[in-house]
């Protein structure tokens, strides 16, 4: 009890110190939670989207290339024993028009209303079930976000033009794993069959089995009754490409998450080191009065546990709000609608361990060291550097960690280790460096002092000595700055390299005067809606139209991978269609005409396919081996693409309509043709884009991703700034008596400020300059490490504006962060300060 009272008095005696400690936990926990939750929310939203379509389905029966097939097969499947249900489905991406001609992209499902609820686990929360043709069910939260209610009419872009349906009911997911059905419209199957002119054909049969332990038996039994052109698969396979398309973002966020965790741990640990160090004298008095070592340790660990608990809970609350904003940014970048802020356990666990765990460990180590001091030692007014960890040990750890991390990065570059491990490599590499800082702090800081002696003056010398007084603490703060800039530069440069590469690709490949499509382009072209039948002919017949390239995207299996087959009309030898990485562009055109294909570099790398090899495409007519005449750098569907001449594709795949019309206009007739095509698009509810507009959309999509990542980097910079404010303020608190004496003897307020600024500048220069170099090295290695995974090297570019801009910005942050502690030091009342203990 007496110790609890002592701790409480200590909090009250030094409220600023206690609050700084608390804030460091809060911000560390909030950052880790926000980033982790945002990642898990984005994943959950992706899963939720998939789940809302797939539901409980164990298997899907489909035809290669998404070809429609007769629904008569459903009856055959239902006869297979052990099946709970088998229901026919058509699904399409399209635009839904509502209100005053506003529109949104969604997926609409044609289902059997009687069975659907058993597959997709939703309940009707408003209105009634589907009972007639032109009726639609929407997810309640989705409808509310659009301002729609039961009884409203909406229109859908279909292959037979715009079609109207009435909202008869609103649904809510009853599945634990799918919080929302998202942007999904459910309509009766016959309605969609009519709208899509599919007759009695369907796209899928979704099957739920009775006994999950006999999945293999059920699959074999279903397979046995299927005609040869139909296949059976586990639904998750569809998500492969969606996952591929977000690999780069996952990589960046994973890295940001690892860094925010490290920063959080550093800030919390450092604050406790300072807190205990400053109380050393008080602990000495306690020891002198008969407090045992274990009592000292217990008291401090208890204090830190209380602070850790409060800080963690507060950090969680702030983190939940921050995660919401971050999730929205990530969702918009990943083409996900309405992500929910789902509070999953794991992010709380990680951030809780970071907050509470690090608080306890961070307090235990210096407390344990303090308890080892004899009362006489503890009472001496000398530096408390001996409370810090052993520098030689840290150096040894650093010497081991850095080369290990560097080796992992090199192995990633060589393709010997998967690129996912690059994050671990970076982390080890940077951590190793931070562990080594205490050992070279003295020579480096002396060198800087000599270099800038005129600028620093005697205040600089005082600042340098103060930093050397607590080398590990100083090093951790330097480490925070080092991490912030190396991560900022490394990731920033990587992002910019990727964006530049993507934009180059887009401007070279997305060539045409005009583009017509039914839905806006998304992360994956698999999600493209079909153009109404007759659209291509109607555009071709418009006066001034030179040529129309009718492009279709379908998913097929090739070499045991799900790839996107892109069928185009290759009609103009001079038109650039690919960003070729292997193969002669002229020979490629001839090869394509002969029935050969061009594949994306990622597919080539994954399938170990080379120029001249044959790729095995699974078609409704069996396996089709097609020779590869070119390999292209491709961002479409994450590079898992096969480009084929449309007439050839039509031979093997029953391609249903087109998803995109790329239109060339005869020179001089642009304006008149544009007017006519626009009129057609308005009539059919289609999207009309000039090349400039299309590139603008593509760029804005990329900008969304880039902005999301900059936001994460900004957050890390904020943590670094906070870490610095914390260290400097604690340092000022600790030096209160000394500052008081200096003020009494000789120092003006300006000189006090200059001393604190000098400390910040020392830490800034020691952390930031190597941080810039490490950041550039990381960016360079990350750019190289993409090659083994994607088959396409991203060229590293040195950007002086980014390097010097980041350095200048971080130095500014350093100076701004030192403003408060500097002012606090300058305002210390001299007489009181001299009594400070």
């Amino acid at each position: 009890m007496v110790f609890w009272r002592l701790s409480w008095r200590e909090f009250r005696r030094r409220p600023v110190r206690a609050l700084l400690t608390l804030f460091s936990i809060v911000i560390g926990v909030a950052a880790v939670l926000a980033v982790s939750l945002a990642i898990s929310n984005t994943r959950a939203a992706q899963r939720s989207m998939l789940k809302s379509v797939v539901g409980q389905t164990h298997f899907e029966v489909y035809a290669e290339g998404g070809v429609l097939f007769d629904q008569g097969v459903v009856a055959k499947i239902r006869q297979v024993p052990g099946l709970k249900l088998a229901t026919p489905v058509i699904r399409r991406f399209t635009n839904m028009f509502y209100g005053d001609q506003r529109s949104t992209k969604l997926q609409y499902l044609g289902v059997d209303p009687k069975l659907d609820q058993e597959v997709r686990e939703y309940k009707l929360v408003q209105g009634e079930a589907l009972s007639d043709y032109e009726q639609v069910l929407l997810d309640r939260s989705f409808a509310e976000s659009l301002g729609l209610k039961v009884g409203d009419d909406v229109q859908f872009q279909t292959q037979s033009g715009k079609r109207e349906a009435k909202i008869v009911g609103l649904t809510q997911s009853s599945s634990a794993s799918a919080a929302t059905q998202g942007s999904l419209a459910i309509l009766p199957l016959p309605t969609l069959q009519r709208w899509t002119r599919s007759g009695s054909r369907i796209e899928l049969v979704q099957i739920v089995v009775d006994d999950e332990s006999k999945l293999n038996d059920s699959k074999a039994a279903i397979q046995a009754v299927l005609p040869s052109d139909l296949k059976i698969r586990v639904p998750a396979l569809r998500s492969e490409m969606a996952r591929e398309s977000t690999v780069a973002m996952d990589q960046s966020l994973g890295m940001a998450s690892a860094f925010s965790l490290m920063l959080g741990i550093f800030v919390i640990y450092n604050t406790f080191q300072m807190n205990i160090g400053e109380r050393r004298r008080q602990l000495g008095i306690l020891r002198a009065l008969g407090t045992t070592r274990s009592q000292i340790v217990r008291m401090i660990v208890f204090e830190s546990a209380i602070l850790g608990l409060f800080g963690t809970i507060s950090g969680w609350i702030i983190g939940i709000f921050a995660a919401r904003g971050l999730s929205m940014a990530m969702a918009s970048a990943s083409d996900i609608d309405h992500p929910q802020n789902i509070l999953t356990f794991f992010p709380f666990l990680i951030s809780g361990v970071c907050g509470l765990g690090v608080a306890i460990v961070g307090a235990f180590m210096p407390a344990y060291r303090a308890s080892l001091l004899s009362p006489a030692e503890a009472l001496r007014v000398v530096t408390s550097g001996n409370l810090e960890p052993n520098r030689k040990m840290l150096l040894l750890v650093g010497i081991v960690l850095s080369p290990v991390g560097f080796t992992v990065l090199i192995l990633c570059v060589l393709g010997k280790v998967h690129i996912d491990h690059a994050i671990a490599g970076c982390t080890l590499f940077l951590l190793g460096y931070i562990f080594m800082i205490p050992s070279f702090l003295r020579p480096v800081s002396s060198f800087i002092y000599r270099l800038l002696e005129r600028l620093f003056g005697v205040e600089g010398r005082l600042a340098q000595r103060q930093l050397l007084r607590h080398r590990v603490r100083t090093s951790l703060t330097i480490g925070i700055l080092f991490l912030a800039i190396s991560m900022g530069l490394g990731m920033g440069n990587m992002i910019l390299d990727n964006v530049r590469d993507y934009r180059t690709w887009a401007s070279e490949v997305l060539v045409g005067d005009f583009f017509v499509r039914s839905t806006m382009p998304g992360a994956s072209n698999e999600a493209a809606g079909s153009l109404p039948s007759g659209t291509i002919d109607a555009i071709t017949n418009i006066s001034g139209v030179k040529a129309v390239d009718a492009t279709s995207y379908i998913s097929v299996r090739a070499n045991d991978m799900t790839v996107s087959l892109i069928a185009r009309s290759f009609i103009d030898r001079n038109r650039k269609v690919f960003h070729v990485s292997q193969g002669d562009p002229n020979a490629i055109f001839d090869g394509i005409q002969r029935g050969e294909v061009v594949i994306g570099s990622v597919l080539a790398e994954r399938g170990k396919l080379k120029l001249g090899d044959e790729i095995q495409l699974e078609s409704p007519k069996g396996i089709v081996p097609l020779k590869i005449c070119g390999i292209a750098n491709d961002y479409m569907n994450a590079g898992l693409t096969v480009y084929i001449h449309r007439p050839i594709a039509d031979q093997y795949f029953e391609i249903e309509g087109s998803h995109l019309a790329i239109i060339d206009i005869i020179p001089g007739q642009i304006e008149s043709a544009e007017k006519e095509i626009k009129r057609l698009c308005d009539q059919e509810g289609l999207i009309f884009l000039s090349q400039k507009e299309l590139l603008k959309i593509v760029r804005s999509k990329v900008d969304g991703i880039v902005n999301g990542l900059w936001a994460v980097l900004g957050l890390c910079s904020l943590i670094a700034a906070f870490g610095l404010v914390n260290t400097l303020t604690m340092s000022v608190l600790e030096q209160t008596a000394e500052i008081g004496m200096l003020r009494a003897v000789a120092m003006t307020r300006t000189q006090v400020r200059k001393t604190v600024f000098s400390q910040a500048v020392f830490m800034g220069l020691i952390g930031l300059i190597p941080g810039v170099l490490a950041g550039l090295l990381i960016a360079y290695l990350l750019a190289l490490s993409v090659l083994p995974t994607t088959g396409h090297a991203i060229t590293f570019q040195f950007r002086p504006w980014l390097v010097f801009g980041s350095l200048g910005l971080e130095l500014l942050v350093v100076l701004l962060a030192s403003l408060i502690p500097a002012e606090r030091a300058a305002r210390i009342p001299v007489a009181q300060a001299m009594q400070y203990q």
Partner: protein
Amino acid sequence: MSLIQIKQVTKSFGTGEVQVDVLRGIDLQIRSGEFVAIMGPSGSGKSTLLSILGGIEPPSSGQVLLEGTDLATLSDDDRTRMRRRRIGFIFQAFNLISTLTAVENVCLPLELDGVSKTVATKRAMESLELVEMGKRATHIPSKLSGGEQQRVAIARALAIKPAIILADEPTGNLDSRQGARVTQLLRDIVKSYQQTIVMVTHDANVAKSASRLVLLRDGEIESDQAQAEWHSDGAVR
């Protein structure tokens, strides 16, 4: 003319019912070359008076004139400059910067005042030699004994060639042998350089070194006598 003159100085801490009047209308004049000891029981206001003399704390009322300049009329920075050029401080706890060597500690006020490092070091070494610490100039405080640390602190005070040295219990943290050595040093400084010193002390033996004794009680001057008078009065026992 008086080096320091304080007129009707009061100092109170707190307000209302918890107000404590530490000094109650002190008048005091100190001439150049005097060695003044201030004594009094705990809470009599000795250290507060010293802080006010040094411009560290402002009085609640009254005037403090150092060489004719009213400290209250100066800005904080000007007061600081006045302190570092004209007032030397010696503290009970030595208050050396633990990370600086002895010579660097002595240089500090000079360098902060813009004196070049070379000149500052030369003057610092002279001061250290004066207090017989020249051979220990490159040691950091933790490697020095208490008496040695206090001698470095005296060297620091002397280095600026101050008009007055204010010493707050300079022997309070020292054993009797080291305390006697420091006291002798202060006496020599006064004798050799006509240095003005105002010293707060509890120790009657230390006070005996001074040429004048001011006794404080409850924030007021109880007696103010020259050495000859208080020796005969037996004011200090």
